[in-house]
């Protein structure tokens, strides 16, 4: 990603007031973006969800004692600068993933953000539940061009890698628009870029307006065509075309918003060339795009799967040449646990540097981080046993949310969905129940 010369002078200006930050890939782009003014009295709230696959080394994750965080456990070490904003939560369970049945990895990934047990099927009749992020996306998406973006580190079109008895859909995403609509996760940074910024290179308001009008005219034509088609086809087929119409309407709604924002200044950023080779570069680039999306207010919700369940990725750049999933069955072998810890810490480092970037970007009365809420975790604790209780769960909350950080909270026999419900509360989205929730979490905003 390369930045046009246009913003160099502004960068120089900013450096003067001490706002430059380490942005290896977005280097120089920040100034162009900070021009975005927020005039709304109510600050914008954002949500990011990060999923780490194949469980966690709990000894290196869980603090020994409840209460204030003194020393951070090894895996969270990279988050040291954000200690006072983070909560480590223990004793939360994903019971819906538990079943005396096969396909445990599919259930683990599916239930994590939904609190719902996936319907066992390899066919098209998949059924799960809406994921937590999508409840936020439904609401926040009313004000942005994209309701949410879904990012992943691995391609999701592998065959033969899905679990027997369970559709690949359960293993390919953590984001579900509703019970039957899994949202595909994108791993190619260029595709993410184009989703955010469209195909037009010019970001001048005039060009963007013309572009919006053209799109609208095309969609009008197509909508008319669908209405014609729907006469005289079976009801099942009508439903499918209905899905297509719904998609068109959604795009039109976003065009309306784009039109309203067309005079807003957008960064002049070159699109990424392709998929970086190493985990680190790739993850950072995707995180950078998430920074951009937040900064330009293109979306306020993202999910990011750092791996998918059963991932067999290796991490040669940190000397972990073992494949992730086999390694996660560590048999308590100290050497394997050490490698796994290294890998999980490495993933956390990418997340930490993302937080750093957000924290360096002014937003309203604070920084982007101040107005963002993050959930980071995995669907299993002990991967050796496929244990879906006492999950590794981490919340990083901006000041906006009134959460008192720097603590390790221990619950017991409590659904993870209670946390989802409580986080939605914090985002200002009050709902009755979520997944298998049976209440709300106490203590998050403790005195």
């Amino acid at each position, binding site marked *: 990603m390369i930045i046009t010369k246009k913003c160099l002078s502004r960068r120089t200006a900013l450096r003067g007031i001490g706002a430059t930050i380490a942005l290896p890939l977005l280097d120089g782009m920040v100034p162009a973006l900070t021009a975005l003014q927020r005039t709304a009295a109510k600050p914008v709230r954002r949500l990011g969800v990060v999923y780490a696959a194949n469980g966690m080394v709990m000894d290196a994750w869980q603090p020994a004692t409840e209460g204030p965080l003194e020393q951070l456990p090894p895996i969270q070490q990279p988050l040291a600068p954000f200690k006072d904003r983070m909560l480590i939560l223990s004793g939360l369970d994903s019971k819906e993933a538990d079943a005396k049945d096969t396909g445990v990895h599919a259930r683990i990934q599916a239930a994590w953000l939904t609190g719902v047990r996936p319907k066992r099927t*390899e*066919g*098209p009749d998949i059924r799960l539940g809406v994921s937590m992020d999508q409840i936020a996306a439904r609401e926040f998406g009313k004000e942005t061009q994209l*309701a949410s973006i879904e990012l992943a580190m691995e*391609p*999701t*079109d592998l*065959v*033969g890698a899905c*679990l*027997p008895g369970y*559709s*690949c*859909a359960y293993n390919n995403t953590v984001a579900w628009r509703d019970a039957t*609509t*899994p*949202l*595909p996760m994108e791993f*190619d940074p260029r*595709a993410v870029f184009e*989703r955010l910024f469209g*195909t037009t*290179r010019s970001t001048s308001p005039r060009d963007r307006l013309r572009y919006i009008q*053209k*799109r609208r*005219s*095309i*969609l009008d*034509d*197509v909508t008319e*065509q*669908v209405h014609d*088609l729907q006469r*005289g086809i*079976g*009801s*099942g*087929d009508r439903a*499918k075309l209905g*899905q*297509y119409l*719904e*998609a*068109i309407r*959604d*795009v039109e709604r976003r065009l309306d918003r784009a039109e309203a924002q067309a005079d807003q200044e957008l960064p002049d950023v070159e*699109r990424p*060339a*392709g998929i970086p080779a190493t985990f680190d570069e790739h993850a950072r680039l995707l995180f950078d795009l998430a920074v951009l999306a937040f900064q330009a207010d293109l979306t306020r919700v993202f999910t990011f799967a750092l791996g998918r369940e059963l991932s*067999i*990725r290796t991490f*040669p750049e940190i000397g972990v*040449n*073992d494949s992730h999933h*086999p390694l996660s069955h*560590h*048999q308590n072998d100290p050497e394997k646990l050490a490698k796994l810890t290294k890998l999980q810490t490495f993933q956390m480092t990418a997340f930490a540097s993302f937080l750093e970037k957000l924290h360096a970007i002014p937003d309203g009365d604070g920084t982007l981080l101040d107005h963002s809420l993050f959930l980071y975790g995995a669907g299993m604790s002990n991967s*050796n*046993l*496929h244990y879906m209780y006492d999950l590794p769960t981490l919340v990083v909350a901006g000041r906006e949310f009134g959460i008192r950080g720097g603590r390790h909270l221990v619950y017991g026999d409590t659904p993870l969905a209670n946390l989802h419900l409580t986080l939605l509360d914090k985002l200002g989205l009050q709902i009755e129940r979520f997944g298998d929730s049976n209440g709300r979490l106490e203590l998050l905003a403790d005195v």
Partner: protein
Amino acid sequence: MRNLLQIFILFCLVTTVANESNAQVTPENIVATHGSGLSATRSFIDSYCVSCHNGRLKTAGLVLDKLDLKHVTGEAELWEKVLRKLRTRMMPPAGRPRPNADTLANVVTSLESVIDRAAISLPDPGRPAVHRLNRFEYSNAIRDLLALEVDGRSLLPADDAGYGFDNIADVLSVSPGLMERYLAAAEKIARLAIGDLAIGTTAETYKLPYLSLLQEDRMSDDLPAGSQGGTAIRHYFPLDGNYLIKIRLQTEPQFSKVRGLDHPQQIDLRIDGERVKLFAMEAQAADNYMMKTEQVRADNGLEVRIPIKAGPRVVAVTFLRQKWYMESLGPERLPATSFGFASGTRSDERHGKQLMGVDTLTIEGPFNPQAPKDTPSRQRIFVCHPNTQGQESGCAEQILVALARRAYRRPLHNGDVTRLMRSFNAGRVNGDFETGIQQALETILVSPEFLFRIERDPSGALPGTVHDLTDLELASRLSFFLWSSIPDDQLLAIAAEGSLRNAKTLEQQVQRMLQDPKSKAFIQNFFDQWLWLRNLATARPDQKIFPEFDESLRRAFATETQLFLENQFHNDRGLLELLTADYTFVNEKLARHYRMPHVYGSHFRQVHYPGDQRKGLLGHGSILTVTSYPNRTSPVVRGKWLLETLLGAPPPAPPPNVPPFPENEGQIQQRSVRERMEQHRKNPACAGCHAQLDPLGFALENFNGIGEWRNTDANMPVDASGVLPGGEKFDDPAQFRSMLLSYRSAFVSNVVQKLLTYALGRGVEYYDMPAVRQIVRETERQNHSWSSIILAIVRSVPFQMRKVPVL
């Protein structure tokens, strides 16, 4: 055949109306003629099945003791499950009394014929849902519509797969995110096809694999003979104009110095085979431990700015050979994956000079662009050019009708034309004639009639009845099956005039389509998914254990299997040859891997296997690698692959909380995979299924995790003995392969089912099984040759017909 079918359809309509139910009809006369088979079947079930599958034990939820064999057709779904277990000899299980082969075959045949006869009188073709084009189909359709090659993988997100394939109608859904991508793709494609000046300057970077691909031989057929290393890429230059082409060279990781500066080099840059520039690079003194800028950025000047005409072109960059060795007879090189290669800046006699390598090739442009006059796409689109404004609308209509007819796969009606012209006019207002065409083209590309394959029921058709597809619907099914794309003009014309259903015409068309290079799409999409070959691209064998696995080997694996399958297909070989072929396709790299002598050079050729270690697909490195873990073989995965992809008998899934597999690492005494596996199987929870899986997977233990032959594993002789599902014991791969052939009927039936799944874009259901058996029977005489099977599928009830859903 056709008339017969019509009579049956008529019969079906009548009975359906009379009975008010479609699947439950059991013509008594069919059962009666099979009276004797009936009692034999009963006693077979009583002796071999009911000791477990009875009302008390209900093993696997299956109760066979009370079932009335007079109602087999009414219970077809259940019986098809039973038949599948019997045909693949998964039942009765090992350790239980088993029937002899003849008895088994008789019972299977008698049950099948009862079901099949009922299906003749009451065919149930099922009903695929409205079908969205997947991204491969989409990019092929663009190629055929606009003479424009685009990469669907970068334009559109991955499609969900079902039943092992990514063209399944039911799972190809539409989301707002996808809609965005379709709109963006349509916009980009329309711009490229027309050559819109608004495309602007872009930089496209192509990166070569580093530390995994040795750039030594001639790397591609698009590079000059005798060239060394580098790459050749197909790039689409969107406009006439100046383009900047930049070459970056590989650097060694420690000091980031350009590799291969120890001797002079010449770098050859060509476009469409014509030399654009020859860069000469001076040798620089090898000073290994100093970081010198001129060595770090020695590739700074490797760029050229030249005018290039719009269109697809091959850009090639390669090194001129310093010395003329016969290809591959040069000095021995360190493997690209080795530490020595990664760290070495020094060259020595034994390993030859250090290799220079291309890291990236960037094409930036166009600068000072001009609208292109003549590209393949423009020739395809602009069938006329208006000279005056008065001619514009007539010409626009001519252009758009031709495009939309192909895109929608049908003749257009007035409403279509009106809409297209409205689209044209909306664009025309903002620019010129071409702007109008561009906007209308964009609209066509997001139209539901382009993106979806929609089949209609005849008006007034009653729920539950079946009917023939229209010729146009059939034409689309054919072209998406064999080409993964839209019908061409010939096929469309034949369908439009209504003569596609003529048996002879249909066969001619199928044969023509199979001969067409576009059928490569079928070979790639079907086989890659069926055989899990798509996973080869992301397989990551552990470099410590398999240092010889690099990009060239990965590519060689893929090419071998691709050439082999194309050969099978184009020479119309029988299905069984997939397993029995005593030949394959190798280049030197692969031949060394397989230890075959006397194969030199980077090009592939057909060779016979010297011994009987390898035969057919089961000897291919591609398949042996995708069925292994990065660091070792997996008899479980291989067993699963054999059962699922070859025999169509997927094993049950593992239970939750499986105890881990003992790895060898860090142990003083190394143990073979088999030893560790045996220990693993002592656990009774595992033994049940692994008793089926592992013994089968062990058959390939002589091949390591990247398909090399081995006689020992962890210093122990490899024991490749095992047992097939039916209890047949084997000692080595050769014996295993010949025994596998006794499962011929299960194998053939399975391949037909996979093909039918792919052809229909839906899962094969129990009611399709009569058609599957019909296809198997029909092609027996042609030895199940590829064309005979494909033709039989095209003629089959589920391919030709469709059922109106029961409300």
